[in-house]
């Protein structure tokens, strides 16, 4: 009798054991355990063949290669492209070397990033924001000029902001794999490599809009939505339509009664499983175009959930006080400073400040 039950490999990631089929990557195995141990990923995108291995955000330490050969791997490995072996032991959040390497990847990705989040449409749903918040440090050591690029117009629907690009190649794989005529790619090399069309062509293809969804940062954004909104002011709703070109399964983003944006649906790892066509994305912006399924589930941790709950349920922190307190406490020198909030509030400076702009600090 043949054994038809698939053979499973046992892997331990951050002390948690999981059984997965051979061929699974470390990252997928970790995702199976859950978000607590899943390494961050800035370039890997499961639906796109060949993606991954580039950003190095997902580096992990393999402290035992397999049960048969329990030697550790000499270098950190990219978990998104390294297949597991039976008996492999992986250290992720538990290994200081890994934590340190991730910190440096954040730093590398940020040194040339414009940090124009306040005017970036991606802010609030940006993987680089999440990645740097979760794995980076709050300061920078970079004193040089940031790199900039010539602006390039790639057509009526998609806005390219090359300065924000992290060169994850996701958009290139997307264009390669789901559109029938790729006109864009990476030009140049090193820190001046850029996403571009050859030469200055518009991207014009029924599925081209999907590059917007796969882009982890605000390098590719929706021109029809540009500067219209901050994502946390809008409400996502699952909807579908009968589309002859794609699955028609989308998310509608409402601001008030108005559909201000249409995107594909993303799973909990921020990946689109069913790509949508440009007609759904850019042309169908009336509620009457869609059958509404109901509100999209949004994690409470996401900034998108902000302002979606009734006011008295959410206790707003008193930012001015919190900030003042933390700043005073964190100053690391031996000048005399005031310790207690009450003392701060009694100081002349504080009073003067309050008198100047009461509204700003929100005090009645």
């Amino acid at each position: 009798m043949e054994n038809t039950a698939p053979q499973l490999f046992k892997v331990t990631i951050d002390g948690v054991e999981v059984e997965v089929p051979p061929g699974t990557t470390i990252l997928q195995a970790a995702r199976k355990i859950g978000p607590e141990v899943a390494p961050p990923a800035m370039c890997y995108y499961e639906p796109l063949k060949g993606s991954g291995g580039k950003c190095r955000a997902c580096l992990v330490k393999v402290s035992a290669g397999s049960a048969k050969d329990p030697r550790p791997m000499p270098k950190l490995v990219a978990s998104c492209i390294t297949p597991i072996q039976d008996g492999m032991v992986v250290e992720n959040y538990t290994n200081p070397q890994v934590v340190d390497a991730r910190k440096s990847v954040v730093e590398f990705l940020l040194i040339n990033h414009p940090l124009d989040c306040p005017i970036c449409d991606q802010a609030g749903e940006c993987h680089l924001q999440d990645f740097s918040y979760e794995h980076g440090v709050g300061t920078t050591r970079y004193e040089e000029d940031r790199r900039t690029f010539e602006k390039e117009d790639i057509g009526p629907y998609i806005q390219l902001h090359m300065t924000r690009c992290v060169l994850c190649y996701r958009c290139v794989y997307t264009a390669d794999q789901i559109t029938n005529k790729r006109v864009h790619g990476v030009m140049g090399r090193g820190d001046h490599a850029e996403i571009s069309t050859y030469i200055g062509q518009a991207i014009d293809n029924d599925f081209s809009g999907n590059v917007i969804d796969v882009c982890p940062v605000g390098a590719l954004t929706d021109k029809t939505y540009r500067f219209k909104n901050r994502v946390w002011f809008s409400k996502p709703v699952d909807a579908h339509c009968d589309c002859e070109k794609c699955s028609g399964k989308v998310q509608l983003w409402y601001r008030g009664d108005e559909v201000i944006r249409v995107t594909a649906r993303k799973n909990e790892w921020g990946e689109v499983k069913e790509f949508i066509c440009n007609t759904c994305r850019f042309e169908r912006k009336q509620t009457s175009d869609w059958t509404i399924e109901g509100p999209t589930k949004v994690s409470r941790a996401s900034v998108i959930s902000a302002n979606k709950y009734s006011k008295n349920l959410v206790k707003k922190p008193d930012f001015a006080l919190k900030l003042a307190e933390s700043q005073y406490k964190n100053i690391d020198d031996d000048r005399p400073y005031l310790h207690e909030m009450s003392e701060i509030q009694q100081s002349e400076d504080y009073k003067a400040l309050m008198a100047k702009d009461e509204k700003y600090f929100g005090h009645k």
Partner: protein
Amino acid sequence: MKILTEHINTPGIETFDVYRKKGGYTAVEKVIKKMTPEEVVEEVKKSGVRGRGGAGFPMGMKWSFLAKPEGVPRYLVCNADESEPGTFKDHYLMKNIPHLLIEGMIISSYALGANKSFIYVRGELMYVIHILEKAIEEAKAAGFLGKNILGSGYDLELVVQPGGGAYICGEETALLESLEGKRGNPRNKPPFPAVKGLYQCPTVVNNVESIATTSWIINNGGEAYAAIGIGKSTGTKLISASGHINKPGVYEINLGVSCDEFLNSDEYCGGVRKGHYLKAVVAGGSSVPIVPGHLFLKTANGEDRLMSYESLSDGGFATGTMLGSGGFIVFDETACIVRNTWNFARFYEHESCGQCSPCREGTGWMQKVLNRIEHGKGSMHDIDLLVDISKKIEGNTICPLGDAAAWPVASAIRHFRDEFEWHIKEPIAATKPGAVYMKESVLV
């Protein structure tokens, strides 16, 4: 011992007739008529010859790792992209004695069972490409290439491919991508080329010099080759010597000759130029750690250092370096280490393919900081910053270019830190044209 360069000065050696008269293509006759492919691989294994492209991996072993699935073609690709600063030996060999490479290609292809093999030549060397193409035509006309070589039934086609014009295209998997007509981005490994290489078929990539050794090995036997050299550094090696020496040029040395002899004897470099002192050496191409003169001549234990893979790396990165590709660059006391390090850093920033974030961003960052220091705008914490950036790149990238960019910076600071500090403390003096920091104790 002259294995590769014995006939290099013979007039007309670039033509088939002269090369043949000097005993050329006898090795092809021998393998095709008398040897099985396995026997050829065995002979190369016995010779112990190590890859001359930089990494020094034993060639015979690499050949025996080649996967041989039924019905799938296998490829041999010769890496002639030679772009490492300080390295110009492959160029010298191909330009002067092209048939040595062609003969090696036939022997190696036969050993590996490849029927179509490629020579990927640095794109800037168009005239060398023409030389090779002519040599291929001549070999074909003489029946050593093409269909049914020497009536054996073995077919081989040789293709010369002009390179993509980037240093990174010399990295073997980037080379394969480029050869396939794509952007020269290194691939993630595994799979290694021996399993999935060119067009996803099993492929061996070898350096020009590695392949060129095979005809001698076949004619004289692997054991005779292994008898030359020292320990695991068997045979001879071409060294491209440049910098502040009396006799720059390409030299064929027996591995194991002492560093002192190589640098100072008249047979080779002829010593540091007159009236000057030895300050530092880059022994194996810009990617290897730079060492001060005294650590080049003697190991940290005071033993004489030898020109061999093992001896040059004695002491690890703390006090040693690497043989690399044999790009030998000598600096006397007039050379500014900071300026040189900045120059190397510019090269790596320019040549990084830009796929992985540590290399793409880190090489640019290091270059900018070094630029500032060199131009009198550095501050003390920049030095530790550079060391830290180099550590964050090293080992965390897809291909070894990241390491290659990190090592020169880290080693320059390790051995010449006071020179960096001087640039920061004395910016006015340091930025005067030709100004160099002098510390006599490091000069030899």
